Protein backbone atom coordinates (compact mmCIF):
# COMPACT_ATOMS: atom_id res chain seq x y z
CA UNK A 1 0.00 0.00 0.00
CA UNK A 2 1.33 3.23 -1.07
CA UNK A 3 1.18 5.99 1.47
CA UNK A 4 -0.04 9.25 0.05
CA UNK A 5 1.59 11.43 2.60
CA UNK A 6 2.44 14.46 0.67
CA UNK A 7 5.25 16.44 2.07
CA UNK A 8 4.35 20.01 2.91
CA UNK A 9 6.48 22.40 1.05
CA UNK A 10 7.04 25.60 3.02
CA UNK A 11 5.24 28.55 1.47
CA UNK A 12 3.08 26.44 -0.89
CA UNK A 13 -0.28 26.97 1.03
CA UNK A 14 0.36 30.61 1.77
CA UNK A 15 -1.83 32.98 -0.21
CA UNK A 16 -0.19 35.47 -2.50
CA UNK A 17 0.49 38.85 -0.94
CA UNK A 18 -1.84 40.63 -3.37
CA UNK A 19 -4.79 38.52 -2.14
CA UNK A 20 -4.08 39.36 1.47
CA UNK A 21 -3.76 43.07 0.70
CA UNK A 22 -7.02 43.07 -1.29
CA UNK A 23 -8.82 41.27 1.51
CA UNK A 24 -7.54 43.78 4.04
CA UNK A 25 -8.50 46.72 1.85
CA UNK A 26 -12.03 45.41 1.31
CA UNK A 27 -12.27 44.67 5.03
CA UNK A 28 -11.36 48.26 5.83
CA UNK A 29 -13.87 49.58 3.26
CA UNK A 30 -16.64 47.33 4.62
CA UNK A 31 -15.87 48.21 8.23
CA UNK A 32 -15.80 51.91 7.41
CA UNK A 33 -19.14 51.63 5.62
CA UNK A 34 -20.71 49.85 8.58
CA UNK A 35 -19.34 52.44 11.00
CA UNK A 36 -20.66 55.29 8.83
CA UNK A 37 -24.08 53.67 8.51
CA UNK A 38 -24.23 53.11 12.28
CA UNK A 39 -23.30 56.74 12.94
CA UNK A 40 -25.79 58.15 10.44
CA UNK A 41 -28.77 55.89 11.03
CA UNK A 42 -28.10 54.31 14.42
CA UNK A 43 -28.44 57.47 16.48
CA UNK A 44 -31.44 58.99 14.74
CA UNK A 45 -34.13 60.23 17.12
CA UNK A 46 -37.18 57.97 17.27
CA UNK A 47 -40.06 59.03 15.07
CA UNK A 48 -43.04 60.38 16.92
CA UNK A 49 -46.65 59.57 16.08
CA UNK A 50 -47.47 61.26 12.82
CA UNK A 51 -49.93 64.13 12.93
CA UNK A 52 -51.49 65.86 9.98
CA UNK A 53 -51.52 69.63 9.44
CA UNK A 54 -54.87 71.12 8.44
CA UNK A 55 -55.05 74.93 8.62
CA UNK A 56 -53.68 75.69 12.11
CA UNK A 57 -54.77 72.28 13.44
CA UNK A 58 -52.56 69.26 13.85
CA UNK A 59 -54.79 66.23 13.67
CA UNK A 60 -54.24 62.57 14.42
CA UNK A 61 -56.34 61.37 11.49
CA UNK A 62 -57.45 62.81 8.16
CA UNK A 63 -60.61 64.85 8.87
CA UNK A 64 -63.85 62.93 8.54
CA UNK A 65 -67.41 63.49 9.81
CA UNK A 66 -68.37 66.93 11.03
CA UNK A 67 -67.70 68.95 14.15
CA UNK A 68 -71.10 68.17 15.71
CA UNK A 69 -70.45 64.42 15.40
CA UNK A 70 -66.95 64.89 16.81
CA UNK A 71 -68.32 66.77 19.80
CA UNK A 72 -70.64 63.93 20.77
CA UNK A 73 -69.21 61.33 23.15
CA UNK A 74 -65.61 61.45 24.37
CA UNK A 75 -63.83 64.22 22.53
CA UNK A 76 -61.26 66.97 22.79
CA UNK A 77 -61.82 70.28 21.03
CA UNK A 78 -59.43 73.23 21.01
CA UNK A 79 -59.12 76.48 19.12
CA UNK A 80 -56.06 77.73 17.27
CA UNK A 81 -55.08 80.96 15.55
CA UNK A 82 -54.25 80.95 11.86
CA UNK A 83 -51.14 82.93 10.95
CA UNK A 84 -53.01 84.96 8.33
CA UNK A 85 -55.90 85.72 10.72
CA UNK A 86 -59.00 83.79 11.70
CA UNK A 87 -59.41 80.81 13.97
CA UNK A 88 -60.08 77.09 13.67
CA UNK A 89 -61.59 74.50 15.94
CA UNK A 90 -59.65 71.23 16.03
CA UNK A 91 -61.43 68.14 17.30
CA UNK A 92 -60.20 64.67 18.25
CA UNK A 93 -62.84 62.06 18.98
CA UNK A 94 -62.31 58.85 20.95
CA UNK A 95 -59.18 56.93 21.89
CA UNK A 96 -55.62 58.28 21.93
CA UNK A 97 -53.82 59.25 18.77
CA UNK A 98 -51.41 56.35 19.12
CA UNK A 99 -54.26 53.82 18.75
CA UNK A 100 -54.80 54.79 15.12
CA UNK A 101 -57.87 55.91 13.20
CA UNK A 102 -60.90 53.66 13.16
CA UNK A 103 -64.12 54.87 11.62
CA UNK A 104 -66.33 56.47 14.23
CA UNK A 105 -64.31 55.15 17.20
CA UNK A 106 -61.46 57.53 16.64
CA UNK A 107 -61.48 60.27 14.07
CA UNK A 108 -60.48 63.92 13.71
CA UNK A 109 -62.08 66.96 12.20
CA UNK A 110 -61.71 70.72 12.10
CA UNK A 111 -63.67 73.84 11.15
CA UNK A 112 -62.27 77.30 10.41
CA UNK A 113 -63.87 80.71 10.39
Amino acid at each position, binding site marked *: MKLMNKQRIPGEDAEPRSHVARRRFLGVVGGGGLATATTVFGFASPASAA*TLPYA*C*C*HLCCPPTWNLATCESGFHYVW*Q*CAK*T*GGGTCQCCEHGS*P*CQDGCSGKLHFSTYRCS
Partner: protein
Amino acid sequence: MLVVLGFAVLILAVGMVVLFAMFGELSARVAQAGTRPRSTEVAPLEGARLGCVPDTWPAGLVTAGEAPSVLLVLSSACGSCLDIAEQLRDSPVEAEWDDMGIVISTSHQETGDEFVAGNKIGRFPHHVDVGGSWVISQFDVNFSPSALVFEDGQLAAAYIFHDVAALRAKITEASAQLGLPQQDRETV
Protein backbone atom coordinates in the same frame (compact mmCIF):
# COMPACT_ATOMS: atom_id res chain seq x y z
CA MET B 1 -11.94 40.99 -13.85
CA LEU B 2 -13.62 40.26 -10.53
CA VAL B 3 -11.73 43.09 -8.90
CA VAL B 4 -12.83 45.57 -11.56
CA LEU B 5 -16.44 44.47 -11.14
CA GLY B 6 -16.16 44.79 -7.38
CA PHE B 7 -14.87 48.34 -7.63
CA ALA B 8 -17.61 49.23 -10.11
CA VAL B 9 -20.25 48.00 -7.64
CA LEU B 10 -18.54 49.92 -4.83
CA ILE B 11 -18.52 53.16 -6.82
CA LEU B 12 -22.17 52.65 -7.76
CA ALA B 13 -23.09 52.13 -4.10
CA VAL B 14 -21.24 55.28 -3.06
CA GLY B 15 -22.93 57.17 -5.89
CA MET B 16 -26.36 56.04 -4.69
CA VAL B 17 -25.60 57.21 -1.16
CA VAL B 18 -24.51 60.63 -2.45
CA LEU B 19 -27.60 60.85 -4.67
CA PHE B 20 -29.99 60.17 -1.78
CA ALA B 21 -28.10 62.61 0.45
CA MET B 22 -28.59 65.27 -2.24
CA PHE B 23 -32.31 64.44 -2.43
CA GLY B 24 -32.56 64.88 1.34
CA GLU B 25 -30.77 68.22 1.28
CA LEU B 26 -32.89 69.43 -1.62
CA SER B 27 -36.17 68.48 0.05
CA ALA B 28 -35.09 70.25 3.26
CA ARG B 29 -34.30 73.43 1.33
CA VAL B 30 -37.56 73.30 -0.64
CA ALA B 31 -39.51 72.92 2.62
CA GLN B 32 -37.70 75.92 4.13
CA ALA B 33 -38.33 78.03 1.05
CA GLY B 34 -42.05 77.17 1.16
CA THR B 35 -42.49 78.18 4.83
CA ARG B 36 -44.50 81.33 5.32
CA PRO B 37 -42.87 84.07 7.37
CA ARG B 38 -43.86 83.93 11.02
CA SER B 39 -46.25 86.65 12.17
CA THR B 40 -44.91 88.92 14.91
CA GLU B 41 -48.36 90.21 15.79
CA VAL B 42 -49.31 89.88 19.46
CA ALA B 43 -53.07 90.35 19.92
CA PRO B 44 -55.19 90.40 23.07
CA LEU B 45 -57.07 87.17 23.74
CA GLU B 46 -60.74 87.93 24.21
CA GLY B 47 -62.74 86.22 26.93
CA ALA B 48 -59.96 85.37 29.38
CA ARG B 49 -60.84 86.01 33.03
CA LEU B 50 -58.55 88.94 33.70
CA GLY B 51 -57.99 89.67 37.38
CA CYS B 52 -58.68 86.13 38.52
CA VAL B 53 -56.33 84.27 40.86
CA PRO B 54 -56.09 80.51 40.21
CA ASP B 55 -57.39 78.29 43.04
CA THR B 56 -54.48 75.91 42.65
CA TRP B 57 -51.36 75.62 40.55
CA PRO B 58 -50.41 72.20 39.15
CA ALA B 59 -47.23 70.92 40.80
CA GLY B 60 -45.35 70.81 37.49
CA LEU B 61 -45.64 74.58 37.09
CA VAL B 62 -44.38 75.55 40.53
CA THR B 63 -40.63 76.01 40.91
CA ALA B 64 -39.17 76.54 44.40
CA GLY B 65 -42.62 77.47 45.67
CA GLU B 66 -43.09 80.16 43.02
CA ALA B 67 -45.72 80.11 40.28
CA PRO B 68 -44.59 81.38 36.87
CA SER B 69 -45.38 84.96 35.87
CA VAL B 70 -45.97 83.94 32.25
CA LEU B 71 -47.85 80.84 31.18
CA LEU B 72 -47.76 79.66 27.58
CA VAL B 73 -50.84 77.66 26.62
CA LEU B 74 -50.01 75.16 23.88
CA SER B 75 -52.06 72.28 22.53
CA SER B 76 -51.13 68.95 20.98
CA ALA B 77 -53.84 69.63 18.36
CA CYS B 78 -52.46 73.00 17.32
CA GLY B 79 -50.03 73.27 14.43
CA SER B 80 -48.63 76.69 15.37
CA CYS B 81 -47.78 75.29 18.80
CA LEU B 82 -45.16 73.03 17.22
CA ASP B 83 -43.47 76.16 15.89
CA ILE B 84 -43.63 77.78 19.35
CA ALA B 85 -42.08 74.66 20.90
CA GLU B 86 -39.37 74.75 18.26
CA GLN B 87 -38.57 78.40 19.08
CA LEU B 88 -38.35 77.58 22.79
CA ARG B 89 -36.15 74.58 22.11
CA ASP B 90 -33.78 76.11 19.57
CA SER B 91 -33.28 79.67 20.78
CA PRO B 92 -30.75 80.00 23.61
CA VAL B 93 -32.38 83.29 24.68
CA GLU B 94 -35.82 81.72 25.09
CA ALA B 95 -34.27 78.66 26.74
CA GLU B 96 -33.25 80.87 29.67
CA TRP B 97 -36.71 82.31 30.26
CA ASP B 98 -36.86 81.66 34.01
CA ASP B 99 -40.31 82.71 35.18
CA MET B 100 -42.21 80.99 32.38
CA GLY B 101 -44.25 77.78 32.45
CA ILE B 102 -46.02 75.80 29.76
CA VAL B 103 -49.46 74.23 29.86
CA ILE B 104 -49.97 71.54 27.22
CA SER B 105 -53.65 71.06 26.60
CA THR B 106 -54.30 67.63 25.08
CA SER B 107 -56.84 64.89 24.55
CA HIS B 108 -54.98 62.16 26.47
CA GLN B 109 -52.07 62.08 28.92
CA GLU B 110 -49.90 59.96 26.59
CA THR B 111 -50.45 62.37 23.69
CA GLY B 112 -49.37 65.29 25.89
CA ASP B 113 -46.33 63.39 27.19
CA GLU B 114 -45.35 62.61 23.62
CA PHE B 115 -45.71 66.30 22.70
CA VAL B 116 -43.35 67.28 25.53
CA ALA B 117 -40.80 64.58 24.72
CA GLY B 118 -40.99 64.98 20.95
CA ASN B 119 -40.49 68.74 21.12
CA LYS B 120 -37.87 68.55 23.89
CA ILE B 121 -39.55 71.15 26.12
CA GLY B 122 -39.43 69.04 29.27
CA ARG B 123 -36.78 71.28 30.86
CA PHE B 124 -39.32 74.08 31.30
CA PRO B 125 -41.86 73.90 34.13
CA HIS B 126 -44.84 72.27 32.43
CA HIS B 127 -48.19 70.63 33.02
CA VAL B 128 -50.03 68.25 30.70
CA ASP B 129 -53.62 69.41 30.98
CA VAL B 130 -55.90 66.59 29.81
CA GLY B 131 -58.93 68.06 28.07
CA GLY B 132 -57.64 71.53 28.91
CA SER B 133 -59.69 71.21 32.07
CA TRP B 134 -57.42 73.27 34.37
CA VAL B 135 -56.80 76.16 32.01
CA ILE B 136 -60.49 76.34 31.02
CA SER B 137 -61.80 76.12 34.57
CA GLN B 138 -59.34 78.69 35.93
CA PHE B 139 -59.03 81.21 33.10
CA ASP B 140 -61.72 80.31 30.56
CA VAL B 141 -59.02 79.92 27.93
CA ASN B 142 -59.31 77.25 25.22
CA PHE B 143 -57.09 78.84 22.64
CA SER B 144 -53.53 78.19 21.47
CA PRO B 145 -50.93 79.43 21.11
CA SER B 146 -51.72 81.91 23.84
CA ALA B 147 -49.88 83.49 26.73
CA LEU B 148 -51.21 84.39 30.16
CA VAL B 149 -49.35 87.09 32.08
CA PHE B 150 -49.65 87.35 35.87
CA GLU B 151 -49.06 90.31 38.16
CA ASP B 152 -49.01 89.53 41.89
CA GLY B 153 -50.64 86.19 41.18
CA GLN B 154 -53.53 87.73 39.24
CA LEU B 155 -54.13 87.20 35.54
CA ALA B 156 -53.18 90.62 34.18
CA ALA B 157 -53.18 90.01 30.42
CA ALA B 158 -53.81 87.31 27.84
CA TYR B 159 -52.36 87.31 24.35
CA ILE B 160 -52.48 85.37 21.09
CA PHE B 161 -49.02 85.14 19.57
CA HIS B 162 -46.92 83.31 16.99
CA ASP B 163 -43.44 84.58 17.76
CA VAL B 164 -41.88 84.10 21.20
CA ALA B 165 -39.45 87.03 20.87
CA ALA B 166 -42.31 89.34 19.86
CA LEU B 167 -44.34 88.13 22.85
CA ARG B 168 -41.49 88.85 25.26
CA ALA B 169 -41.06 92.31 23.77
CA LYS B 170 -44.80 92.94 24.23
CA ILE B 171 -44.69 91.82 27.86
CA THR B 172 -41.67 94.08 28.54
CA GLU B 173 -43.44 96.99 26.84
CA ALA B 174 -46.61 96.40 28.87
CA SER B 175 -44.68 96.34 32.15
CA ALA B 176 -42.83 99.52 31.16
CA GLN B 177 -46.19 101.21 30.59
CA LEU B 178 -47.09 100.33 34.15
CA GLY B 179 -44.00 102.31 35.18
CA LEU B 180 -42.20 99.42 36.81
CA PRO B 181 -38.75 98.27 35.76
CA GLN B 182 -38.82 94.64 34.61
CA GLN B 183 -36.34 93.45 37.26
CA ASP B 184 -38.27 95.08 40.12
CA ARG B 185 -41.67 93.91 38.99
CA GLU B 186 -41.40 90.49 40.64
CA THR B 187 -40.34 91.87 44.00
CA VAL B 188 -43.29 94.27 44.34
